[in-house]
C-alpha cells in the first residue's frame, strides 16, 4: 500500500521533523516500509504560462508554433499537443528546466527553434493522462512555479501489505496517521465530517439485509443534483500517487475515502439502484462486473441487489449495469461491513481480489461505515456545493462487536518486557493509539478502540505489543535469561540418525540426498515400477506427484539413474519419511526410514548386495551393539528381486530389507550397471535397547584354528549349517569365520575356520580334534561333507 506524507499531514502536524527517519521508525514500530519515493523533485523551472498565439506549422499538420508568456518573458515554442489554443493556461518548462527525467534545452523541431515545452499531466508525473496539455485554471497568474500551485512535491512510501494483515485499522491514511501521532507524541486531528443528523427528517432508503450472518452493517444515503464531473487536481494527484486511477468525481471520491479511512464504499447510480437487498441466491447465475467480465456467481457469494436484480458482488466489485456514468447526477452511496471470511472466499473463487475485498478480508471495524458517509458528504459538498442529500442516513446494523476491556498490572508489564517502562509512558502510548486507559494503583484497565477490537487486540499480551513497539525495541536494555542448571539428555532419535549418517558417509562413502515425500510417477514409469496405492495429496502440483511414497526404493533408484554419469561406482542414501498406508482410524502410518542404494558398473550385483548387508551389520553393531539376522523373503515391492530380497531383523523385530533388482527394472535402470537397495526403519531401530558393552579379560593362551573345507548340497546355506556347532561350549569355540566360498562345476564349496581357545591353557590339536569330529558328524546330515 502506498502512503502519501502530504495526506498524513492533513491529520498530524509533522512540522520541524525529518520525514525519512520517521518513516524508518514506522518500519520498526508498525509495519515494514519497502520503499520511499520522492515525488515532484524532478521538476525544475516548470511554471504556469499563457499561450498568447497559435500559428500552424508550415510543414506539419500536427505541430503548431506558439508564443508563450511565462511571466519573465515570452517564449517561442513548437508544440504537437492536440488541445493547443490561444489564451490557454498550461504548465510550461522553460529552456534549461527539467521535467519527466529530461533536461529541456533549446532545440530545433522541424526547422523552428523551441525554447521550452508545454506539459501534459503525465509529463508532470501527476497522472497517467497524456492525451494533451494540462489545462490550468484560467484564473491562475502566469509565472508561478507548478510545485507551488499544486502539491506535486510529496514523499510517498510503500508498506508491505503482508505486514498489515492483522491490522484492519492501517488500511487507510487516517489509521497510519494515528501511528505517526503516537510515534511523535503529536495530536491526531479529528476527521472533518458532515453532521448526518441534519437529514433525519428525510425519507429512509429501503435497505433489507437478508443474509444477516454475512453482512454486519449496511449504511446508505442518497444524493442528487451532482453537477461536477471531474475531481480537483489535488485529489487526483493523491489518488495517482497512491496507485489509484482518476475516473470521475464520484468514483474518485469512493476511492479517496477508501484510501483515507480504509472503508470501501460503492456509489450506485440511484436512477438505476434506489433500494438495496443483501442476500445470496440458491442457484448459480452469471453476472457482469464493472471490469466487463462475466462472472459465475455461486450460492455462497453474497450479492447486493436492487428490486431483486443483482447490482454488486458484496465487498468485491460493483456490476457494470449500475455503474456511475458521465451523465450520472444522483447516487446511492453504500458504506457497509461484510464478513471477512466470506469476502475472502468469494474473491478467491471469482479470482477477483480488489482493493475493497483486500480490506474486508482484514475484518474491518463496522463502526466506521457511518463516519465514512459523513466524510464523503463533507468532501463532496466542498467540491460541489449544489449537491443535495435526498434521504436520511439509513443504517442497518446487524452485528456489534463486544467492547473489549483488559486488565493488567505493572508487574505483568515488567515481567513480560524485562525492562522498566514508566506508568506515564504506558498511559501516554495507549492514549495516543486510541485506547482508553485508566490506572488504579498498580493496575491498569484498558478499553480497546473499536478499530482494534474486531480480532486484533483481545488479550493483555496484545497490550504489551502496543506499549513496546512504540517504546521501540532498539531502546530495550537486553539481558540474559536466568534459569536453574539442569542437564539435558540428547534424544536417542537424533543420536541414532547422526551416527548412522556418519557411518554411511565416512565408512561406506555414500552420498546423502534429499528428495520428496511423494512418489514421482513419471520417473517410476521410466523404471517400470508401478506407484503403490497410498494416502494422496488433495491438490498435487502435478498428477505425477500425487501419491505419498510407501518406501524409499523408487526414489533412490531414480536418483541412481539420474546420476549414472557421475561415477562408475557410487551409492546414495536418504533419511526421510514414508507412509505405510493408514491405520483403522484413517491416520497415516508415517515412518522415518533410512534408504540406501548402490550402483556400479565395476562391481557385480552380488558384491553390492553383500556390501549393503555388511552396512546393516555395521550400523547394528556400532550404534546398538546388536547383530542383525537376514532371511530371504518374498518381495513386497515390484522392483525387488524375487529370489534376492532379504529381511532385516534386529532383536526379533523385522525392520527393513535389502534387495537386488527385478530383472525388468534392472534392465531399465542401466544396461551395463547393477544396483542394490536397502531400507531400514529408523524409528524402530532407534527404539532398540542397545547391548551394553561388557569387558572380558583376554585369554593369556594362544588358541588354535581348524579349517574345514566343505562341499555343500543344493540349497544349503551357511545359516542352515549353524546347528552343527550350536551346542559346542562358546568358552571353547570362540568364533566361526568364513575363509572362502566358491562354486565349481555346479558344486558349492565353503571353507570355514573354527577358532578354539581356552582361558586355562594352550590347546593342542589333539584336544580339540574330538570336538571337530563331532561338528563334522553333525554337518553331514545338514548337507555338508568334508571335501576330498
Amino acid at each position, binding site marked *: 500500500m502506498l502512503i502519501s506524507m502530504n495526506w498524513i499531514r492533513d491529520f498530524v502536524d509533522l512540522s520541524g521533523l525529518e520525514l525519512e527517519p520517521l518513516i524508518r521508525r514506522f518500519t*520498526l514500530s508498525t*509495519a*515494514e516500509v519497502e520503499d520511499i519515493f520522492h515525488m515532484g523533485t524532478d521538476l525544475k523551472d516548470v511554471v504556469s504560462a499563457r499561450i498568447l498565439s497559435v500559428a500552424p506549422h508550415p510543414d506539419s499538420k500536427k505541430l503548431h508554433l506558439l508564443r508563450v508568456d511565462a511571466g519573465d518573458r515570452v517564449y517561442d515554442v513548437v508544440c504537437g499537443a492536440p488541445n493547443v489554443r490561444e489564451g490557454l493556461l498550461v504548465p510550461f518548462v522553460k529552456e534549461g528546466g527539467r521535467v519527466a527525467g529530461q533536461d529541456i534545452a533549446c532545440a530545433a523541431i522541424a526547422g523552428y527553434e523551441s525554447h521550452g515545452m508545454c506539459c501534459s499531466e503525465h509529463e508532470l508525473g501527476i497522472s497517467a493522462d497524456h492525451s494533451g496539455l494540462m489545462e490550468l485554471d484560467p484564473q491562475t497568474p502566469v509565472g508561478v512555479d507548478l510545485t507551488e500551485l499544486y502539491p506535486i512535491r510529496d514523499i510517498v512510501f510503500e508498506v508491505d501489505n503482508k*505486514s498489515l494483515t492483522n*491490522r484492519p485499522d492501517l488500511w487507510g491514511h487516517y489509521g497510519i496517521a494515528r501511528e505517526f501521532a503516537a510515534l511523535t507524541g503529536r495530536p491526531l486531528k479529528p476527521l472533518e465530517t458532515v453532521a448526518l443528523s441534519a437529514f433525519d427528517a428525510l425519507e429512509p432508503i429501503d435497505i433489507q439485509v437478508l443474509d444477516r450472518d454475512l453482512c454486519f452493517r449496511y449504511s446508505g444515503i442518497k444524493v442528487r443534483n451532482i453537477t461536477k464531473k471531474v475531481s480537483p487536481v489535488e485529489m487526483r494527484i493523491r489518488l495517482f500517487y497512491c496507485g489509484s486511477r482518476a475516473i470521475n468525481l464520484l468514483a474518485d471520491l469512493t476511492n479517496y475515502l477508501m484510501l483515507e479511512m480504509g472503508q470501501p464504499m460503492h456509489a450506485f447510480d440511484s436512477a438505476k439502484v434506489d433500494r438495496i437487498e443483501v442476500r445470496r441466491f440458491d442457484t448459480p447465475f452469471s453476472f457482469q462486473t464493472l471490469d466487463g467480465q462475466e462472472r459465475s456467481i455461486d450460492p455462497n457469494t453474497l450479492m447486493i441487489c436492487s428490486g431483486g436484480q443483482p447490482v454488486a458482488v458484496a465487498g468485491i466489485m460493483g456490476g457494470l449495469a449500475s455503474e456511475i456514468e458521465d451523465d450520472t447526477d444522483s447516487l446511492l452511496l453504500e458504506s457497509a461491513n461484510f464478513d*471477512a*471470511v466470506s469476502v475472502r472466499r468469494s474473491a*478467491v473463487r471469482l479470482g477477483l481480489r480488489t482493493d475493497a475485498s483486500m480490506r474486508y478480508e482484514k475484518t474491518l471495524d463496522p463502526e466506521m461505515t457511518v463516519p465514512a458517509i459523513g466524510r464523503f458528504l463533507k468532501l463532496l459538498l466542498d467540491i460541489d456545493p449544489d449537491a443535495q442529500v435526498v434521504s436520511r442516513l439509513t443504517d442497518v446494523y446487524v452485528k456489534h462487536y463486544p467492547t473489549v476491556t483488559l486488565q493488567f498490572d505493572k508487574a505483568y508489564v515488567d515481567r*513480560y*518486557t*524485562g*525492562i522498566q517502562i514508566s506508568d506515564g509512558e504506558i498511559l501516554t502510548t495507549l492514549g495516543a493509539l486510541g485506547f482508553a486507559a485508566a490506572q488504579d494503583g498498580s493496575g491498569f484497565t484498558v478499553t480497546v478502540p473499536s478499530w482494534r477490537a474486531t480480532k486484533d487486540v483481545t*488479550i493483555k499480551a496484545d497490550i*504489551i*505489543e502496543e506499549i*513496546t513497539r512504540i517504546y521501540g*525495541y*532498539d531502546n*530495550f536494555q*537486553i*539481558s*540474559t*535469561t536466568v*534459569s536453574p542448571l*539442569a542437564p*539435558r*539428555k*540428547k*534424544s536417542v*532419535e*537424533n543420536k541414532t540418525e547422526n551416527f548412522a*549418517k556418519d557411518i554411511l*558417509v*565416512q565408512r561406506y*562413502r*555414500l*552420498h546423502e*540426498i*534429499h528428495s*520428496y*515425500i511423494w512418489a514421482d510417477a513419471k520417473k517410476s514409469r521410466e523404471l517400470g515400477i508401478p506407484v503403490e496405492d497410498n*494416502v*494422496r*495429496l*488433495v*491438490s498435487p*502440483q502435478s498428477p505425477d506427484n500425487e501419491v*505419498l511414497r510407501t518406501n524409499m526404493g523408487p526414489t533412490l533408484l*531414480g536418483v541412481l539413474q539420474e*546420476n549414472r554419469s*557421475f561415477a562408475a561406482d*557410487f551409492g546414495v542414501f536418504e533419511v526421510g*519419511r514414508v*507412509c505405510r498406508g*493408514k491405520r483403522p482410524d*484413517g*491416520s*497415516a502410518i*508415517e515412518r*522415518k526410514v533410512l534408504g540406501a542404494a548402490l550402483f556400479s558398473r565395476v562391481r557385480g550385483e552380488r558384491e553390492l548386495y553383500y556390501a549393503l548387508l555388511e552396512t546393516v551389520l555395521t550400523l547394528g553393531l556400532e550404534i546398538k551393539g546388536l547383530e542383525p539376522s537376514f532371511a530371504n523373503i518374498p518381495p513386497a515391492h515390484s522392483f525387488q528381486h524375487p529370489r534376492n530380497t532379504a529381511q532385516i531383523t534386529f532383536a526379533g523385530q523385522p525392520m527393513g530389507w535389502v534387495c537386488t533388482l527385478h530383472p525388468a527394472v534392472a534392465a531399465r535402470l542401466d544396461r551395463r550397471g547393477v544396483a542394490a537397495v536397502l531400507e531400514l526403519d529408523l524409528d524402530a531401530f532407534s527404539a532398540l535397547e542397545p547391548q551394553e558393552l561388557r569387558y572380558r579379560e583376554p585369554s593369556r593362551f594362544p588358541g588354535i584354528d581348524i579349517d574345514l573345507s566343505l562341499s555343500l548340497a543344493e540349497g544349503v546355506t551357511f545359516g542352515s549349517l549353524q546347528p552343527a556347532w550350536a551346542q559346542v561350549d562358546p568358552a571353547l569355540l570362540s568364533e566361526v569365520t568364513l575363509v572362502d566360498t566358491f562354486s565349481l562345476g555346479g558344486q558349492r564349496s565353503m571353507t570355514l575356520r573354527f577358532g578354539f581357545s581356552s582361558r586355562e591353557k594352550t590347546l593342542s590339536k589333539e584336544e580339540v580334534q574330538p570336538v571337530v569330529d563331532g561338528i563334522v558328524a553333525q554337518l553331514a546330515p545338514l548337507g555338508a561333507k568334508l571335501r576330498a
Partner: protein
Amino acid sequence: MKEKIEALRARFEAELSAAKTSETLEKLRVGYLGKKGSVTELLKGLKDVGAEEKRELGQHINALKKQVEERLAAQAEALKTAEENLLIASAEQYDVTLPVNEAQGSYHPITVVQRQLEEIFTSMGFTVEDYPEIVTDYECFEAVNVPKDHPARDMQDTFWLDNGQLLKTQTSAAQNAIMKKYGAPLRAIFPGRCFRNEATDASHENTFFQMEGMMIDKNISISNLIYFMKTMLSQVFERDIQVRLRPGFFPFVEPGFELDISCLICGGEGCPTCKHSGWLELCPCGMIHPNVLREGGIDPEEYTGFAFGLGLTRLVMMKYGVKDIRDLNSGNLKALSQFKHE
C-alpha cells in the same frame, strides 16, 4: 715370528682394501680368522715357542686378531651403507602430485548446517527434537493459535491429504506435543522438513527445512529474547551480529517480530544484497502466545517463553552461495557430493 706377523698384517690391509663385496669380506674373514685361517694358524704356532716369547708373541698376535676383526666389521658396515645408498639411488621416486582417485562420501548441506546449529543449541542446554511430517490440523494450526479461517489453511498454501491430515507447513506443528512431553521449564529445538503448496522456482521450493526453537521458563522476557537471538546468531555466523526487531504478525506469538540482522555482506553500510538498508530479514520470533502455552498444558500466568524459526534451507543457501534452491532436493551428486565434511 714377528716379521711373519707384520707381513700378515700388511697382506691383510692390502687384501681388505681390495675387498668390494660382502662375499670377499667373508672370504677374508675365513682366510684370517677361520679354523684354518692365517691368524688362527699363528696362534696355533705359539705352542712351539718358549714361555717368555710366547707371552710377547701372544700379545702381538691377539692385537692383530683384534685389528682384523675390527677392520672387517668396519668394512662390512661401510659396504652395507654403500649398498643401501645404491638401493636408494636406484629406487623409484613416487609422484606425490598424481591426482588421487579417492572416492569420498558426502553429507547433504542441510545436514551440515543443521549439525552446526544443533551443536550451538545443545551447548546452551537445548534438546533436539524430531517430529513427523504428516500431521493433523490440530497440531499444525489449532494448537498454535491459527484460527479456523486463516488463509494458511487454504488449499493454495497447504498440502492436504485425502485422509484429512496434512504435510506440516511449519515446524511449529511440533510445539504443542513438545510442551506436553516436557512441560516447563523447557528448551528445545526442532528441525524438520516443511511443505508449502506453491510453485517452485530458483528461490521457492514446496519442500524445505526449518529449525524452530523455544525456551520457556518463569520470567522470560522480550529483553531476554533479544539478548538470546543476538548471542545465538553471533555463534551461527561466527561474528558479532547486530539484531533489530520489527513488529511481525504470527498467530503463535504475541508480540511477534521479524528479526533483521546487520547485513553480512556490507556490515550495515548498505549494499545491493541488503537493498541498501544495511539489514537482512532473517527470521520470525516472538513471545509464545498465551493460548499456545495453555494449549500445551503450561500456565501462561506462571510461565512465559519465546520461540523463533530459522530457515534452515535459507541459511544453507546464504552460507554456501547456493543460487537455485531446487539443487538441494535434486539428488544431483555433482552438486551434493561437494559437501564432504562438516
